């Protein structure tokens, strides 16, 4: 059993390192790690129980004992689920999150899986900008969009450009007149879409003919962005590429409003 995960939850390639998110996140990671290892053990119990049942006559007394072992494993599964749920509840609290940090985590996580012909360029004009978000939720939004961008390029050479901007006035200051949202833009030089397809991509179960996937990815992204009080929009040109833009309220203005 891989107990090391209990102590160092970020030791593998878990992208949301606990250190930057405080004690609650560490507790959440620990609970999640224990639930993970427990679920692995339960799978083994199920497996040997099933094998034992296959080798016994149906009326054997031992069959009843094994059914009770499976029932006990079911209860353990429920407990592990509750632990995981606790872990997610703690992890699902909104906190001020530096977008650039989550972007860096996401790109580090994805980079080894993206074909070498694809360049990922970061263009962060507002590196300290933050939003109120659940870090894992923002991570999942960016993960989906950057993976889609990589898939749109495929095995060809291409570029994904990730931009983070906070609108400023001519003096370089942030003011409400210039907008209170941060702009995250993810552009790719992939195959693009026609306007009919682009108009449907946020619909549940819509797929553009891919072999894999449920067709829920962008619906989930769209819902998650709305949950952050933001908006998402897409523009695309066939054979040129696609751009997703996320507008998410900036905590800078949240704190100003609180002071007023």
């Amino acid at each position, binding site marked *: *059993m*891989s107990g*090391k*995960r209990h102590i160092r*939850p*970020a*030791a*593998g*390639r*878990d*992208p*949301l390192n*606990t250190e930057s998110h405080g004690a609650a*996140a560490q507790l*959440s*990671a620990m609970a*999640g*790690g224990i*639930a*993970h*290892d427990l*679920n*692995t*053990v*339960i*799978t*083994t119990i*199920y*497996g*040997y129980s*099933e*094998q034992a049942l296959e080798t016994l006559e149906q009326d054997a007394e031992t069959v009843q004992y094994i059914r009770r072992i499976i029932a006990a*494993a079911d209860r353990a*599964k429920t407990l*592990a689920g509750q632990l*995981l749920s606790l872990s*997610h509840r703690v*992890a699902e609290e909104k906190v001020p999150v530096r977008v650039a940090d989550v972007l860096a985590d996401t790109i580090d996580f*994805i980079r*080894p*899986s993206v074909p070498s012909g694809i360049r990922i360029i970061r263009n962060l004009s507002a590196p300290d900008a933050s939003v109120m978000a659940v870090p*894992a939720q923002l*991570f*999942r939004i960016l*993960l*989906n969009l950057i*993976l889609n961008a990589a*898939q749109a390029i495929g095995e060809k050479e291409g570029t994904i450009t990730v931009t983070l901007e906070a609108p400023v006035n001519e003096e370089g200051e942030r003011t409400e007149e210039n907008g209170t949202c941060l702009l995250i833009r993810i552009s790719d030089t992939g195959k693009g879409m026609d306007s009919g397809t682009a108009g449907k991509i946020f619909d549940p179960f819509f797929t553009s003919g891919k072999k*894999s*996937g449920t067709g829920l*990815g962008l619906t989930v992204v769209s819902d998650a962005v709305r949950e952050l009080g933001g908006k998402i929009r897409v523009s695309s040109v066939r054979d040129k590429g696609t751009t997703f833009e996320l507008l998410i309220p900036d905590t800078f203005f949240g704190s100003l409003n609180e002071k007023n």
Partner: protein
Amino acid sequence: MAGVMIVEDDAALREMLRDSLEKRKYTVITAADGREALAKFRPSVVDLVVTDLLMPEEDGLMVIMKIKEIKPSTRLIAISGGGMAGPGSYLLMASKLGADHVFSKPFLPSELVQKVKELLG
């Protein structure tokens, strides 16, 4: 008979899955992490890989990606209990990288065996 590789860092689960598949007459090769899996992978022997995702050395996502490069026809099943980013993130990545099916732990091994049978036709 078809060959199956199991990549899982938990020894008890790894051996249980080996037992389950060998009983169905599959030739089974096991590995405790991604690095060992890639070292042991033989295209002529392995038709399907069952891989955990979070592992200490090379992880399961890397295994999926590299095996798809070495032998694109290899069928792949990802199993994961998830980490702090949640099982959805890892299983989503696995699907996008080409896993034919994913199981979130805990699962019934009989269902995995059935899926292996389906994928190997």
